[in-house]
């Protein structure tokens, strides 16, 4: 049994040696064939990596939003298609307070008004998105001031002209100088810079640090103009929950509360929309999943072409070496010996090509990560998978030529020229 196994192993080793000799004999041809597989494996490996990189990116940007929260918008939820009894969405500061008071498990809330602003200081200027909110925003969205402080309840109460700058905005206006305590003009009014936020990086080329935060009352007084219809209206509300709170349940409870407040009955459309980070994650996972499948499918075509190249070259190799096959049969080679010889040859071609493709993909992935700021993780699993997969391609496309070789009649093969 053991001896038999050793014998088998050494038989395969002989096949590898025969294959290497044959491949070296037609070196140029072998290299070109390998190239096809290399490109195919490169494309597939990179596609898989880019796909999972996209997934990571999406998850990162959702996490940047805040981990466990519901987002409420004053936008009629047309999703379920019932009767429409509101001409516009509804969401007010009073709703926010009611939610905070009556829903359990809430960590903090962050009512928001958003508007574009121009900041000017000493001839430099920057435009950014200003979030008018309450101190709760810091907690819900995981942002803290790196220097200085975040906005306070007192700032909100007094509608103070204070602003916390995102790192990108601070850099644009002040360079490397710490701007805390400086004055900037926002739409001509002087504001005191009270803090600079910690960096949250960027996701999908979207700079999370290009932001300014001020008290919601200040935004309402100075910037909302006629964009809002009521004096108490909100553009958005973040509701942050404690860890372990079920978001679907929380969403149901908020919906119930707001429906009561707006007296929405039966199948009527809600004048508000609620989304949770959990939903975002699920949807993104779906989208990136499809993205990945499409990407891999396209890349697979090049691998298929590489495989056909292998089959072509193996058919040529079998034809060229018909006489050798006949000779080996005369000397005692069984069908399986001949078949295995050519299978191993195809597999060796593919594994070499696969290994080179993998190396190329690792290089490409690293370049993307470094230069395009897009994570392309090529894990050990992907690497091993690529090698096994390319061996499989070899067996698949080398199979037909190998079986054809093994079916030759010894005498006809020997007589061929």
């Amino acid at each position, binding site marked *: 049994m053991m001896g038999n196994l050793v014998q088998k192993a050494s038989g395969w080793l002989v096949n590898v040696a025969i294959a290497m000799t044959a491949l070296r004999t037609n070196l140029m041809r072998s290299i070109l064939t390998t190239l096809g597989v290399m490109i195919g494996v490169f494309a597939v490996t990179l596609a898989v990596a880019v796909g999972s990189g996209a997934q990571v990116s999406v998850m990162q940007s959702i996490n940047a939003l805040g981990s466990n929260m519901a987002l409420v918008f004053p936008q009629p939820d047309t999703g379920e298609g019932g009767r429409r009894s509101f001409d516009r969405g509804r969401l007010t500061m009073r709703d926010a307070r009611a939610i905070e008071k009556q829903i359990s498990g809430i960590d903090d809330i962050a009512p928001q008004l958003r508007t574009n602003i121009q900041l000017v200081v000493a001839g430099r200027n920057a435009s950014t998105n200003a979030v008018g909110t309450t101190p709760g925003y810091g907690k819900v969205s995981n942002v803290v001031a790196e220097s200085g402080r975040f906005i306070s309840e007192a700032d909100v109460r007094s509608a103070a002209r204070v602003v916390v700058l995102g790192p990108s905005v601070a850099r644009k206006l002040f360079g490397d100088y710490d701007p805390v305590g400086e004055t900037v003009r926002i739409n001509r009014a002087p504001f005191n810079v009270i803090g600079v936020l910690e960096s949250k990086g960027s996701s999908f080329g979207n700079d999370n640090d290009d932001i300014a935060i001020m008290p919601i009352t200040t935004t309402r007084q100075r910037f909302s103009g006629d964009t809002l219809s009521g004096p108490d209206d909100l553009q958005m509300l973040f509701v942050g929950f404690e860890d372990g709170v079920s978001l679907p349940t929380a969403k149901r409870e908020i919906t119930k509360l707001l429906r009561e407040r707006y007296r929405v009955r039966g199948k009527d459309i809600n004048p508000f929309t609620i989304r949770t980070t959990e939903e975002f994650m699920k949807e993104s996972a779906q989208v990136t999943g499809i993205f990945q499948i499409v990407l891999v499918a396209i890349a697979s075509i090049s691998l298929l072409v590489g495989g056909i190249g292998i089959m072509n070259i193996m058919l040529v190799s079998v034809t060229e070496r018909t006489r*050798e096959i006949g*000779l080996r*049969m005369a*000397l*005692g080679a*069984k*069908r399986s010996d001949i078949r295995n010889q050519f299978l191993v040859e195809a597999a060796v071609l593919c594994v070499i090509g696969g290994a080179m493709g993998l190396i190329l993909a690792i290089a490409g992935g690293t370049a993307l990560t470094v230069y395009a700021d897009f994570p392309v993780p090529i894990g050990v699993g992907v690497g091993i998978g690529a090698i096994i997969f390319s061996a499989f391609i070899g067996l698949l496309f080398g199979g037909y030529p190998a079986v054809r070789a093994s079916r030759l009649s010894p005498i006809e093969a020997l007589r061929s020229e």
Partner: protein
Amino acid sequence: MALVETQDLVKNYELGGETVRAVDGVSLSIDRGEYVAIMGASGSGKSTFMNMIGCLDIPTSGEVRIDDIATGDRDGDALAELRNQKIGFVFQQFNLLARTTALDNVAVPLIYAGLGGDERRAKAKAKLEEMGLGDRLDHSPAKLSGGQQQRVAIARALVTDPVILLADEPTGALDSKTSEDIMQIFQTLNDQGITIIVVTHEAEIADHAKRRIEFRDGKVIEDIMTKKRRKAGA
């Protein structure tokens, strides 16, 4: 007991609707230790006959028995095993693997006999040394003379210790001096007890054999024991 036995052996080829009877009902038996020369005009069926007793070709009808084994009911793999164990082939064109050393060429049959690498090399080396090629182990065929190449081929045919050596015009590609060397080797082998069947056109080659079989149109027309047996080196 007969080592090679054929019974009404027939091989037909269909060529453009016509049937060519390449071998036409040959029954003969060759004993262990014989040295047989097969002669006959070109196209008389010598090679076809040799290929069938070498189990390389399947007869249209009739039977071939090797060492009392009926070959008709054996499949391709079983025939491959039989060839590997009992039959050594020497071809006119040597049929060595190009870009492969003499040693590795000789070791090929041992791969299929299932021997390990060390054992293969040891046996192949011993056979090549017997053929006087101990200093050419690492030479590829391209670096060997025709006679040397044929000696490598003979070493390969003998490396599995077969009972029969089949040689189809083994000197056809060699000059007369080298041919004589090869014949000396065959003589020595036969003296050691190996059964030899050789196809040839040349009377001088046939003269080495103890028995001569003449083919014409696929049939045996003469089968005689030639008494004169030359001594080695004569």
